[in-house]
């Protein structure tokens, strides 16, 4: 087996002396969809932010065979690693089309960008209707679609998704997950952070369970779904 696309070893992240992530390790192989679940405050967002270099961290993070622990934030999207942050982070005062354009900021092949834009509009037709509108005027679900579409405009190899279902009505959650599935089906590697453990475990091939800054469990999606501890703590049974 070749080296994993993302390999994290003994990762520590703290906020001014208070440890939030305490020496976790995990890996994501190319083409895989892996999820990271856990209660509020377990350290999931902190982990993703450390991967995206938004937070300083100790330990080892290898992406595509190279350490990215000292890579500048703005270099990673060009490397093929794109974070869709918690709370979407769309640019409210830019139009939908401009937001999508920001996803392709690092690319310069105009023909390829135009083709990708067509593909994103095909996947997310709602965005096409709203193209000239300011992103701040979109509904929460539409903003989540936009955040994913914007990330796709970077042609990611590894997509980091932080709680894409947050604050969405069940129908919208279904739609967002359909999109995530089809992105995965196109071969994009995905690390998915979710509160909605049932949904996450049903789409991911493997999962890690985070508990107060450590990884408590890891197994295949179906095995975690069947695990009594997981059922009790995260599936409300």
């Amino acid at each position, binding site marked *: 087996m070749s080296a994993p696309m993302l390999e994290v070893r003994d990762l520590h992240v703290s906020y001014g002396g208070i440890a939030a992530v305490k020496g976790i390790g995990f890996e994501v192989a190319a083409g895989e969809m892996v999820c990271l679940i856990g209660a509020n405050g377990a350290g999931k967002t902190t982990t993703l932010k450390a991967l995206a270099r938004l937070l300083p961290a100790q330990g080892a993070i290898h992406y595509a065979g190279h350490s990215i622990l000292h890579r500048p*934030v703005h270099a990673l999207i060009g490397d093929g690693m*794109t974070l869709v942050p918690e709370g979407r982070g769309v*640019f409210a005062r830019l139009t939908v089309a401009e937001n999508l354009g920001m996803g392709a900021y690092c690319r310069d092949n105009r023909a390829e960008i135009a083709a990708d834009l067509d593909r994103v509009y095909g996947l997310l037709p709602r965005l096409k209707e709203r193209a000239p509108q300011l992103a701040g005027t979109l509904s929460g679900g539409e903003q989540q679609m936009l955040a994913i579409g*914007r990330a796709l405009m*970077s042609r990611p190899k590894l997509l980091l998704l932080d709680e894409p279902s947050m604050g969405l009505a069940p129908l919208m959650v279904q739609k967002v997950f359909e999109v995530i599935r089809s992105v995965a089906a196109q071969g994009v590697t995905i690390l998915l952070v979710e509160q909605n453990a049932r949904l996450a475990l049903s789409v991911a091939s493997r999962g890690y369970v985070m508990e107060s800054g450590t990884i408590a469990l890891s197994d295949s999606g179906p095995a975690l779904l069947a695990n009594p501890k997981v059922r009790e703590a995260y599936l409300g049974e």
Partner: protein
Amino acid sequence: MDTFIQQIINGLVLGSIYALVALGYTMVYGILGLINFAHGEVVMIGALTALTVIKLLANSDLPGTLVVLIGLLAAVPVCMALGFAIERIAYRPLRLAPRLAPLITAIGVSIVLQQLAMIFWGRNYHAFPPILPTSGRDIGGAHITDVQIVIVLLAVAIMAGLMLLVNRTRLGRAMRATAENPQIAGLMGVNINVIISATFLIGSALAAVAGTMVSANYAIAHYHMGFILGLKAFTAAVLGGIGNLPGAMLGGVLLGLIESLGAGYIGDLTGGFLGSHYQDVFAFFVLILVLVFRPSGLMGEKVAERA
């Protein structure tokens, strides 16, 4: 009636200059949330650099307009380098510091630049050599010189160009994205240090143009001209809504008109008790009124969210 039209003309000329300077304040504020109090000094150094070059060439055979253009073209890179250096040396190390630190630093930079200018250019007023054409035209009993027409047209052209840059180019889009959320802009691959430097470079280039215009229009420049000019342009930016580009333009022109009309009529209004040298009062009166009644300015959104 002719006083009125004359003051409108004077106000538009002055307002165009304020607008160019106000843009520098508002662009930096939009991206860094910082009031760059040293910006007025950049205008002053632009004015004195241009004037120095102009005086050097004044007795040559070159036509006066060309001499002024050369002076302007010398001031632009000097101011750009200065603005770039100010950000790198004074503000960047304080990027993560509490907000008061860069503000105090800005005032410090302002004092340092003023003192350096005093050492370099002396304490005297520098007169603009009479090399520009004095031709002009009469409109409804008032007079506008060709130089003033050029000032207004150039300011309008520059502002139109800036709006195109900000709204229609990749750099402009990245600037707007960074102003809204630098962290997410970084995730999209924007090197925000580059964007911040670009903002200072552009603002300082505008300051150089404004400085040259001031010295050409008022025929004078001196080392402490930047303080009051900067404060007024800052007032204009606040009036329009700080952080808002069209707001800075509107605020600049309005402030120029208010000052000019105020100065024109203050004698009549106070029965001759106060004269037109009280012109400066109006800007600060406007600043106080805006801060009390509409702190977000005419075109701004909630300032509280950022402040």
